[in-house]
């Protein structure tokens, strides 16, 4: 469990909502520097899995280790662990009452207690990284969806996270904006950031993933490197899923 090269270890993780087993005994290990892409039909539990890693969703049972630390319900510990895990949401969830720059500096200042000067420098560096430093003084509503999602990525990166979680980051975007976000994510993957990505973008999975995880009905059905996963999936359920999304 506490092997120094593991970033996330999930052990027999279960989560039930009323009447539904969203996660039905999931075990998964993510090594440092790895990019894991999780795919699966909707309702398969992939978002719930992601949200359990930083405990936005409280687990029902099972164990979660992040960077060797076992997660408890201790709120101090959770706040600290969360500050070290960046999360990017399907609907961006930028703070609409704050400028782009304030969106990125706020948590640095009140969570990590970084000086205003340093927070701004850091924010500008991250905005440059995602290619929209000229939008620093705009409000989120003035940006396109793709630009908003890149701000959200910069906001997460500015906390200098050990791990980045992406929850269907391109699902709410117009088709012509998907590329700009995927390019940023591909850059991050190449830079060696540990990432868990829930997505329907198979191109991204092929290009960036170290491993692809296929989930269905709250369980991991198959887990393989992208070349094997797409070329010769072992499970019947995986084949069916892939044939439905690839052949049309």
């Amino acid at each position, binding site marked *: 469990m506490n092997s120094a090269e593991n970033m996330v270890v999930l052990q027999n993780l279960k989560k039930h909502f009323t009447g539904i087993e969203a996660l039905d005994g999931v075990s998964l290990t993510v090594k440092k520097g790895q990019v894991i892409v999780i795919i699966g039909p909707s309702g398969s539990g992939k978002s719930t899995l992601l949200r359990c890693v*930083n405990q*936005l969703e409280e687990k029902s049972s099972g164990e979660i280790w992040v960077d060797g630390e076992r997660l408890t319900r201790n*709120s101090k510990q959770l*706040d*600290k*662990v*969360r*500050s*070290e*895990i*960046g*999360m990017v*949401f399907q*609907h961006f*969830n*930028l*703070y*609409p*009452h704050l400028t782009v720059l304030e969106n990125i500096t*706020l*948590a640095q200042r*009140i*969570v*990590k207690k970084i000086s205003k000067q340093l927070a701004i420098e850091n924010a500008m560096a991250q905005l440059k990284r995602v290619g929209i430093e000229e939008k620093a003084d705009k*409000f989120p*509503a*003035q940006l396109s969806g793709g630009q908003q999602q890149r701000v959200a990525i910069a*906001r*997460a990166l500015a*906390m200098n996270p050990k791990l980045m979680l992406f929850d269907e980051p391109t699902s709410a975007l117009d088709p012509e904006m998907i590329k700009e976000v995927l390019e940023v994510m591909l850059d991050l993957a190449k830079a060696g950031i540990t990432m868990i990505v829930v997505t329907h973008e198979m191109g991204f999975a092929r290009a960036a993933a170290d491993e692809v995880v296929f989930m269905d009905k709250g369980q991991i059905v198959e887990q393989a490197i992208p070349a094997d996963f797409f070329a010769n999936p072992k499970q019947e359920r995986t084949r069916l899923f892939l044939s439905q999304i690839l052949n049309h």
Partner: protein
Amino acid sequence: MAQSVSTSTRPPSIRNSPEFREYILLKIKTAPWWLIGIAIIAVITAVTIATNQPFQDAFLFIKAGLGVTISTTLIAFVFAMVLGLLTGLGRISNNTFFRNLATLYVEIIRGIPMLVLIFFIALVGVPAIVAGFKSLGVWFTENGMIGIGAWLSGFKNNAVPMNTRAIIALSFTYGAFLAEIFRAGIQSIGRGQMEAARSQGMSYWQAMRYIILPQAIRNVLPALGNDFISMLKDSSLVSVLAVRDITQIARLYAGRSFQYQEAYITLAVMYLTMTVLLSFLMKFIEKRIQKNEQR
């Protein structure tokens, strides 16, 4: 962004065009014609007070209560806001005790007429608390803590003036109303905002303070303004405690001079003037906020 037609339509550049005609017609349709009614009332009243001796006397007498009416409303509203915000947070709290306490308070206040509440808080609630302080003081004295004991038993009913009791009563009443406004405001902010803030490591209270409340309060500002205007009007109820606000003074004047018409017309116009001015102020503030949001 929902917006009324009149503010979003700009005048077409070409005059005498059909568009221009349409624009003018729309302007005529949506203009605040009721303001003419208000203006007529204002002019007639101003002229009457200036030229008619009995009305002038009534106005000069009653205006002595303006300070009390305004200060009672302002102070009570500030306390009601604090109480309302705390109660609103309690209503959505995960803590069973605070959630139920807040709900109990809101339900009790909502179920009792305001006039009855004002009597109750001022004439039953406050004396009971003073009596409580006194017996606490006796207990402290008996147990050797003479200093604090003497201080507590020193509390007297008449040490709490009726003005203060009126403010307490209004604060408690409106605290419950404002709590529902704050609760609705907080719940109007999408779950994603709290999740984004928590995912960055902010505590619940940090997320509330920096992310949720600034947006929630901006959303409920019109409702808060409405309640402020309502409170100004309801402050007239404190006249039943013989607090010398404009209503009480108008009653005194009418009773003494038998000039009922002069007293109550003047009083009504005074309230109307204040509430109309306040609702203009509110509209102005709302427009400013809308503009800010469209940056």
